[in-house]
Every structure is written in C-alpha cells, then in structure tokens.
C-alpha cells in the first residue's frame, strides 16, 4: 500500500472513530437525555462518516488499487492526489465544525468548495489510470 493511501486510510479511520463516537452519543441521547446541545453535532456526525470516512477511504483505496503504468512513475503524476488529501480534510473540518460551533455560514460554504476542489484534484490525478489492460 503506497504512503499516500496510508495517509488517506489512517485519516478515514480517525473520522470513523469520531463519527461513531458522536453517533453513539446522539443515539444514547435519544434513549436517555444527556445534553440538548448534542443535536447541533448531528451534521458533523453525518459529515465525518459520509465524507471523512466513506469518501476518504474510497479515495485511498482507489489510489492504491487502480491500474499502474508499466514505466515509472508507476502511479503517474500524484500531485493532484496529495492536494486532494489536504483539500478534503480541510473541507470536512470546516463543513462539520462550522455548523456545530455556530461559526459563520461561510465556513460551511468554503468547506464544501474545498471538497469540490478535492474531487476535481483527485479525478485529475486518477483519470489517466482508469484504463483497460492494454493501457
């Protein structure tokens, strides 16, 4: 597994833990009230598990297992995938903490823009590797 995939997947595991922890608190709160402010963390719970865990894990796996080139560099130009890692995680943090901490609405908008940037950057890096056996 390449180093960059390791980063994606370790960060995804971090969001899995954060998302399940918040989800457990919210579920327990439904059964036995803990604190009313917990509900403001529902969007963060969703963001961490959808984007931080599932989407990030998928990108890490894609970078690892998509076909490689016959000649070095075997995974092509990887800059876009590195940029996507940074943009995605900055975006997830902004889009989740913005609503939860009642920051400016711009936090959510900028977070989403960063996530779009991550998608474009990763697609730019991975498209040349979406090929058949003949290349």
């Amino acid at each position: 597994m390449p180093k960059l995939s390791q980063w994606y997947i370790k960060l995804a595991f971090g969001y899995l833990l954060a998302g399940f922890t918040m989800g457990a608190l919210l579920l327990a709160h439904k059964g036995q009230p803990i604190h009313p402010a917990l509900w403001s963390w529902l969007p963060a719970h969703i963001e961490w598990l959808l984007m931080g865990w599932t989407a990030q894990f998928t990108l890490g796996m894609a970078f690892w297992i998509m076909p490689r080139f016959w000649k070095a560099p075997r995974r092509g130009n990887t800059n876009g995938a590195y940029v996507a890692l940074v943009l995605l995680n900055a975006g997830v943090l902004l889009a989740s903490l913005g609503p939860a901490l009642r920051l400016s609405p711009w936090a959510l908008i900028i977070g989403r823009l960063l996530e779009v940037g991550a998608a474009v950057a990763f697609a730019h890096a991975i498209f040349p590797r979406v090929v058949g056996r003949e290349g």
Partner: protein
Amino acid sequence: MPLQTRWFIKSAFVYLAVAMALGIGLASGMVVQLPLWLAYSSPVFFHLIMVGWVTQMIFGVIFWMFPIVTRARPRGSERLAWATYILLNAGLLLRVLCEPLNAMNPRGVWGWGLVVSAVLQWLAAVIFIYNSWYRIKERYRGD
C-alpha cells in the same frame, strides 16, 4: 476469502435488501397511513444502509485485502474480528428494534436499549480500528 469476511459481506447484502424493503414501506407513507413503528423508522433506514451495508462491507473487505501482518498471523486477531462482527450487528439490530419503540414510548426501557446499542456499535468501531491499524502499511516483505 476468510470466514469473517464472508459473514461481513453476506450480512451486508442482507441489510441492503432489508433497507430497500423498508424504503418501500417508508415511501408508501405518501399514499397510505403508516403504522407508527414504520413512520418512526426513517433513521433506521439510513443506518441500515450506512452501518449495515456500507461500513460492514468495508470492514469485511479490509479484513480480507489489507497487507498481512506476518505469514504466521496474517490478519491480526481473528477473535477481535469476530468481536467486531458480533458487536456491530447486535448493536444495529438492537437499534432497529428499539428506535421506533422508543419513539412511541419515550423514556421507557426501549431508551436503555438505544444506550446499549450505542455502546455496542461504538465498541465494534474501536475494536475494528485497533485490529486493523497496524495493517495500514507497505506490503509484507518477510520477517
């Protein structure tokens, strides 16, 4: 494919089918009056998909495909993998049962069922991460 992975993946497909069936039930609320337990099952629908299908499928595939630890102990602790499977599914099934019943009878015994469900699913995630973390690495190249 290891036995635990087969259980994870087959269970994931069952949850997917059940979630889709529940989705039909919830959608039919547009045209008929739903029984209360069904009307309160929207969160169950989403979690059957995201926990029962997506996360469980990923857990199974990780246990199967991630780089091995050593040839003697390729996938880490098999007991912890079983613990993850049992805790995740017990927690999710308990939620499926208790969530609509708690919505109909708040603060009753079903509420404690949700608390137990939350703890079981959280433990499943913690144990899974613990058992998988050291397999996020380069390919195994011998001892």
